[in-house]
């Protein structure tokens, strides 16, 4: 039963993530990516750019922190030190009305810091029916405290999460796995980076794992129902496909099973006997005729050791 539920989830959610990454239809007009230094969202962005290229979409990259244009994009907009209103005009001019466009903003922090800017209405203004907005928000960068007129306004992240049709959260595979291993054994889960609360440590070991990343998805359907799933996203350069995290070999393997198989191995290695038998031995054993074999046949019902005649 559990297997069938998993199979069902696998089929549905993999189709959904492929649709989202492939930017098919208007699956998600505003995708918000929450990342941290432990796992940057850059590999995910590369997947998106790659897929947009395949489907011949325009890619407009608004850069606040990327010094050189990533390969595969159509337009690179350097947004550093530019007023939001100016950006709005420029983005609007870049986005054509008859071709589908992927608009990427590599860091929402400057917009979020801007106290005079109404972030929700700004983002709504740049999204048109033909554009999909993909924006990164660094969850570990603190914002300055709000100034008096906005003191009671919700923080920008809250309104972003409210607006977004899909929210991705990235985790490093290595760190995610070590947390899971600890949880399997009911141990305290390890913490990384700032969470370590150690002087001078800002990033944990095992960050930005080149083997791929763990992607947590929260997709909101038009009906309002949300779908949550955790995926494993392989690095953009590899030929692997995105899979459910549960299907990842390193995630599935638990230490418990490891210990069991290891114990079995040790048991067979230590004993001087070979407890198993070969096929020939089994056949021979079946062929052996035991004494008083006839007594077990039906109809005779003879007593023990008694001569039937």
């Amino acid at each position: 039963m559990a297997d069938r539920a998993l199979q069902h989830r696998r089929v549905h959610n993999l189709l959904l993530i492929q649709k989202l990454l492939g930017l098919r239809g208007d699956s998600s007009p505003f995708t918000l990516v929450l990342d941290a230094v432990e796992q940057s969202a850059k590999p995910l962005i590369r997947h998106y750019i790659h897929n947009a290229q395949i489907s011949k979409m325009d890619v407009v990259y608004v850069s606040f922190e990327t010094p050189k244009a990533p390969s595969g994009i159509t337009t690179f907009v350097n947004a550093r030190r530019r007023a939001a209103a100016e950006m709005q005009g420029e983005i609007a001019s870049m986005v054509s009305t008859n071709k589908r466009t992927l608009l990427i903003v590599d860091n929402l922090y400057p917009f979020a810091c801007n106290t005079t800017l109404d972030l929700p209405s700004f983002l709504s203004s740049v999204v048109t029916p033909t554009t999909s907005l993909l924006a990164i928000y660094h969850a570990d960068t603190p914002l300055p405290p709000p100034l008096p007129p906005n003191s009671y306004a919700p923080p920008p992240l809250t309104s972003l999460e409210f607006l977004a049709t899909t929210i991705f959260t990235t985790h490093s595979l290595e760190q995610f796995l070590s947390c899971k291993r600890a949880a399997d054994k009911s141990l305290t889960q390890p913490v990384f980076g700032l969470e370590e609360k150690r002087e001078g440590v800002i990033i944990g070991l095992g960050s930005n794992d080149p083997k791929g990343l763990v992607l947590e998805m929260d997709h909101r359907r038009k009906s309002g129902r949300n779908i949550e799933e955790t995926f494993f996203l392989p690095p953009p350069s590899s030929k692997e496909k995105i899979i459910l995290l549960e299907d990842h070999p390193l995630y599935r393997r638990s230490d418990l099973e490891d210990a069991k198989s290891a114990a079995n191995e040790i048991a067979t290695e230590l004993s001087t006997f070979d407890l198993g038998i070969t096929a020939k031995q089994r056949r021979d054993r079946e062929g052996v005729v035991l004494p008083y074999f006839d007594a077990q046949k039906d109809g005779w019902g003879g007593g023990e050791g008694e001569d039937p005649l």
Partner: protein
Amino acid sequence: MPSQPPIPPLLSPYLSIAPFASLTLLTSTLGASTNWLVLRFIYSALKDTIYEKDGSTKEHTEDTMVVLVSWLRDGNFWKEGGRKLGTNFQKIQIVDALSTGFGLGAGGLAEAETEILKAIATAREATKENGEARVLLVLDGLDFLLAATGCVTLEIMDLVGAVRDHVHSTILTSSADLPLTQSPTTPLEISHTAFVMGMAHQARIIMSVRGLDTGVARDVSGVLRMCRGAGAGDEADEGEGEVEEREYLYLVGADGGVRVFERGA
């Protein structure tokens, strides 16, 4: 001459010239400074050979110039430290921001930016006859401006972004003490955390120096942690210099020599 080799063997793969447009972030704490690391980065950039990851070496093909801007130490300090290693100072343009105090006066950050760009231009000029030189920019203690002028984090990040466009690669040092990065509450703590984390998001390698967790020891100066930053996968530079994550201990001797070793070694 210090008793140790100028570049500790374990560190050499990390010190070779970083790819184009990359940022290296060095963080320090009050008890453990990054000065020795900065000096070794400069020394290694100006040396004629590049250490490859597999231990082999190859010759520099391009000329390299270093522009060192320091807000926390004066020119003499760096010169003395560099001389102990045997660094060629003709290829270093030192901008002594401590003595001149630029960026702090009425000119503000704009003044600091003009000065840095001027120094970069001078460094370029100096090697013009030998063709285009790669410029390595070292910004030491830029976070001091954040504290001293009370400017907005975004302005400083924009400053870094603007000067990065003009150089081959950038090394930035910043302090990352406990109150400045962990659960910040005051405006300065918040803006400092935002600055360090913002830079970590752009950095290819983050090298953090901190004191020993168990307290002061005579034979260990501190712990050096090297991590892939969030900017590591920016471009398809996989394969060329993948950063290996490590944590080593180091000891800075009285003569300035540095020994880097594994835990328990």
